[in-house]
């Protein structure tokens, strides 16, 4: 299987006969710069619209604090600072942890939850996609998939306590159905003639699975993992409502209860950026693991 993977992609023909590879590279760089400029100006426009709306005092700062306040809340949450101006009592970040520590705590939970979901989801998806078990188990998978996490976090606390275990379970339960579903659909998408080809060469059932079915469904599985990670992020606040400090979801919840909108928005922005970066990481993993995607 690796032969096909490792085969170098054919050199893309230059767009015009006159243009050499150098021009081509310059063209690409220019394109990338253009894209970057587009992103930067969109962001700038958005920020200035935000600033303008708050500067004109069209909305109360309780609903939308100015960008400066959010930045201040972000800085406060990442530094040791006095509890109030003039006080000699120094506080560490928010709730005794820096904001990045809250983020790392949540990332750990997500990593364990999604990691377990990968370990369980992929084999289960393979089994469900290739055997009669799929017909039996699919309704349960759909049932689990449609449950809102807030509805069963209470149950998980009763079963697994208020420590990290119940939180990780919640993230696992949110992340594993998309991975299993994606694996199933990947398995179903394997071309039958490829399977028949290796079979006719005398491959065993296991060999068919590891040499054809698994690699062929990897693109779908990776998409499933990306979707699952997204789900895990949306679930993390629900998971951390009870005893969720440190945890960025727990911090956002507590700040919301105290009507500290600036800190809530700072948390949301950090969650959003972390999620985007994580997704970019997974996307580049996709490029390495399945370079043939979109080229076949």
């Amino acid at each position: 299987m690796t032969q096909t993977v490792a085969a170098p992609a054919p050199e893309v023909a230059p767009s015009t006969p006159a243009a050499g590879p150098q021009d081509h590279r310059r063209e690409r760089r220019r394109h990338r710069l253009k894209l970057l400029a587009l992103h930067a100006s969109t962001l700038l426009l958005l920020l200035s619209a935000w600033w303008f709306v708050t500067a004109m005092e069209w909305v109360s700062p309780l609903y939308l604090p100015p960008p400066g306040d959010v930045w201040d809340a972000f800085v406060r949450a990442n530094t040791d600072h006095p509890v109030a101006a003039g006080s000699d009592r120094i506080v560490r970040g928010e709730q005794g942890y820096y904001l990045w520590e809250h983020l790392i705590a949540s990332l750990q939970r997500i990593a364990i939850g999604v990691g377990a979901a990968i370990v369980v989801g992929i084999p289960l998806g393979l089994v469900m996609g290739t055997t009669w078990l799929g017909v039996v188990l699919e309704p349960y998978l759909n049932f689990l998939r449609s449950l809102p996490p807030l509805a069963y976090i209470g149950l998980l606390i009763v079963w697994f306590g208020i420590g990290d275990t119940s939180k990780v379970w919640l993230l696992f339960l949110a992340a594993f159905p998309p991975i299993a579903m994606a694996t199933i659909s990947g398995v179903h998408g394997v071309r039958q003639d490829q399977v028949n080809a290796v079979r006719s060469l005398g491959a065993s059932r296991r060999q068919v699975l590891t040499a054809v079915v698994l690699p062929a469904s990897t693109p779908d599985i990776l998409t499933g993992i990306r979707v699952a990670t997204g789900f895990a992020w949306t679930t993390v606040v629900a998971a951390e409502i009870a005893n969720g400090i440190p945890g960025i979801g727990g911090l956002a919840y507590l700040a919301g209860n105290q009507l500290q909108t600036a800190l809530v928005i700072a948390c949301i922005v950090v969650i959003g950026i972390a999620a985007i970066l994580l997704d970019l990481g997974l996307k580049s993993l996709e490029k390495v693991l399945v370079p043939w995607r979109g080229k076949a």
Partner: protein
Amino acid sequence: MKTRATAAALAAAALALSLSGCVESGRSSTASAPADSDCPWEPDESVTTTARIAWQAIPNGDVVVKDLGILEACMPNATIKWVQAPSGGEVVKYYGTDEVDLGLMGSSPATIASSKPIVDDADIAVVWIHDVIGDAESLIVKDPSITDISGLKGKTVAVPFSSTAHYSLLQALTDAGLEAGKDVEVINLDPDKMPAAWQGAQIDAAWVWDPTQSQLLETGGERILSSADTAEAGRPTFDVGTASRAFITENPEFLTQWAKAQDWAVKLIQDDPATAAESVAVVLGIDPADAEKQFAGLTYLTASEQASADYLGGQFAKDLFNTAGFLLEQGGIEAVGTEADYAEHVDAGPAESVAGD
């Protein structure tokens, strides 16, 4: 093949790194506590109990004790674990699953925990009154032409259900001859969602606590009733300290030290509110000035006051019983026990043990 192996190794390394744990979950925030957090009295080194304490973000002595590390300083050989709970109802649940030994909750959840069916799972006793709720929880109306509760007929009132505020609101409505659900629409809403509903004119009034209460008052709301009024009408609400009864029996020394710490914090709030407010501000993540303002809405009782017949020494069991009768009508519990049943879930012992000091 090589690139794939590298990628897999990288992914595994990244996973391992993130799992290796740079942040401990249970780290105490003592790093931020003032340097002089010594025990205000002779520490008891004989206590080796492991105690799991559920706390809530309410401005009273409990968070002062937590912030200053009094329990840790006075019982150096005990293991104290602080568990943050979002509501009293959650604390009851933690008791039911044996996740905590002590916990703070409102008097409504405490009643629920002492009544059928929860009492079968959570065997707790009220050992401390952290505060008597006064103006800290009040009924704020939007329309300035409404000056008393009877003016709320046909209006919508928001309150967090199963809370002490819910109890106070329904009591006040009943006393005014209004029926919730018929004359007045009572809806369940978390405090942090109230300002938006208020601005959108989806609610006409709310019975709520700080910081939402101050927020509504600032945006033109008027206070027409507070929990101080319902208390005067014979329906007081409290934030209470509870402990599992088995824990109380096994760890009397721990509870004595615990009550001593709570009593010390109550006196600190009364004598030096600025210092106490700083601790509250640290734990709640608010401004010390706001914290000090919030003290005014609550009444704090010293151990000797608590042990008296007006509170844990007698009347409190009746208050639980009265609350239970009301909660039964609301469907919060299945049956009301006898007054003697509720007396079993009140233990003035720890308060008495430090009342003389």
